[in-house]
């Protein structure tokens, strides 16, 4: 009697052996690179699945805690229909019968501060049974909680009755680890939007926020001007609406200062259309210090109705000549 081994079993054994080997190597590297060092950041590999008939959703994730200079990895494997998946850190080798797509992602932490986590990634993707491989190496600067899309795979075979996955997206995200002495510190934010006009009346808006340090908090301000008041000579009809929104993340440091990451977006709208710009600023401030952050002048161009019913173009320089828009911020550590 002839004894044969099915092909898929051979593939499974090969994939498992590959992941076990790489996992063992990574585990050894991690232990040797930073014994006793406190991790400062957590790197996460997440997998988003999109069904053929619905919305995308995260279906798997695995993360590793890293100290500066430390390297560790995460592996992910899935079958050809993308419905059977396994994920784990290098010491937890995913075990998927008949795995078709296999990834191993290695992270090396370079620098870490609020919303600026610099990490080197090395990705290897292996396609079974051909064993074709693709290697990718990148240096990323990640904003906490904001993902970086790493790879994409689409289902190649025909759909069956139970599995409806159309594709998978692999993405990386990062977050700082909170030190035990400052974890849970509540920060109170006092935010102002000021549109200053020389020899004119300033427009101001005010908002207060509070949250645990490291938590990102959204804010939003709106200022509305009649177009006719901004440029009387053009006899324009309607309003110009400036929306300044964004998110702030503060983190208390051991030296008493507070690290701030301020994401700001500005949208100007006259009628139905709108244009926008924005930026990200990092700075530190003292407890209770009041810092003003000036936004660059807008460079958009828009059309607006005039008194005759026609449309004419007007630039933001013309509309907001001499206007200076600033966000004023102060942060206080709440005494607990």
């Amino acid at each position, binding site marked *: 009697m002839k004894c044969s081994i099915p092909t898929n079993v051979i593939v499974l054994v090969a994939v498992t052996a590959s992941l076990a080997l790489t996992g063992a190597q990574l585990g050894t590297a991690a232990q040797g690179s930073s014994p006793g060092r406190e991790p400062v950041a957590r790197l996460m590999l997440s997998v988003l699945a999109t069904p053929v008939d619905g919305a995308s959703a995260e279906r798997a994730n695995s993360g590793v805690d890293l100290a500066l200079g430390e390297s560790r990895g995460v592996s992910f494997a899935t079958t050809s229909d993308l419905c059977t998946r396994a994920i784990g850190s290098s010491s937890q080798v995913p075990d998927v019968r008949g795995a078709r797509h296999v990834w191993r992602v290695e992270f090396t932490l370079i620098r870490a501060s609020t919303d600026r986590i610099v990490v080197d990634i090395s990705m290897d993707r292996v396609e079974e049974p051909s064993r074709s491989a693709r290697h990718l190496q990148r240096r990323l600067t990640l904003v906490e909680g904001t993902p970086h899309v790493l790879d994409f795979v689409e289902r190649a075979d025909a759909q069956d009755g139970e599995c409806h996955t159309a594709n998978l997206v692999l993405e990386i995200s990062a977050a700082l680890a909170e030190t035990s002495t400052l974890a849970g510190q509540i920060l109170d934010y006092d935010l*102002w939007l000021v549109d200053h006009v020389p020899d004119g009346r300033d427009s101001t808006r005010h908002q207060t926020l509070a949250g645990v340090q490291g938590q990102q908090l959204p804010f939003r301000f709106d200022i509305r001007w009649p177009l006719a008041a901004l440029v009387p000579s053009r006899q324009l009809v309607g309003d110009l609406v400036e929306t300044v929104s964004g998110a702030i993340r503060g983190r208390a440091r051991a030296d008493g200062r507070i690290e701030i990451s301020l994401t700001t977006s500005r949208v100007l709208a006259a009628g139905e259309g709108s244009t*926008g710009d924005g930026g990200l*600023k990092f700075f530190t401030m003292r407890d209770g*210090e*009041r810092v*003003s952050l*000036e*936004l660059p002048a807008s460079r*958009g161009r828009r059309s607006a109705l005039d008194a005759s019913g026609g449309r004419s173009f007007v630039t933001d320089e013309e509309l907001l000549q001499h206007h200076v828009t600033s966000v004023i911020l102060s942060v206080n550590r709440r005494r607990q």
Partner: protein
Amino acid sequence: MNESWEEMLSRFVDGESVDPDSLAEALASPEGRDALVDYTRLRTNVRVVPAEPTQAFYTAWRRNCAARPRPAGRSVSYRVAAVLIAAAALGGYGVDAWHRRPADAPPRVDRVLRFEPAEWRMEQGVSR
């Protein structure tokens, strides 16, 4: 004797005019006569009490009360009390105004920062 007899007899003793028939009826009874005697005695006793304090009273008052120094911290003059009440009211208003700082009054700034070109994504968009 009923209530109206008492009232009528009291007014009579005080010198007010009363109905003679009612007075006669009241005095016809022993209770009425006793009541009249009681009211007359009370009236007489009240008249012998001097209405004005004697000079001795004034002397004693000056010695014991007027000349005594005011104990510190035990009483507050009306002026001081008024000032304290006004200060408390203004203080309360001030705290309330501080909490309800008007929306068009941003705080004074300690430091001014700007978005550097590398930190700002400038878009020269056109909207219609």
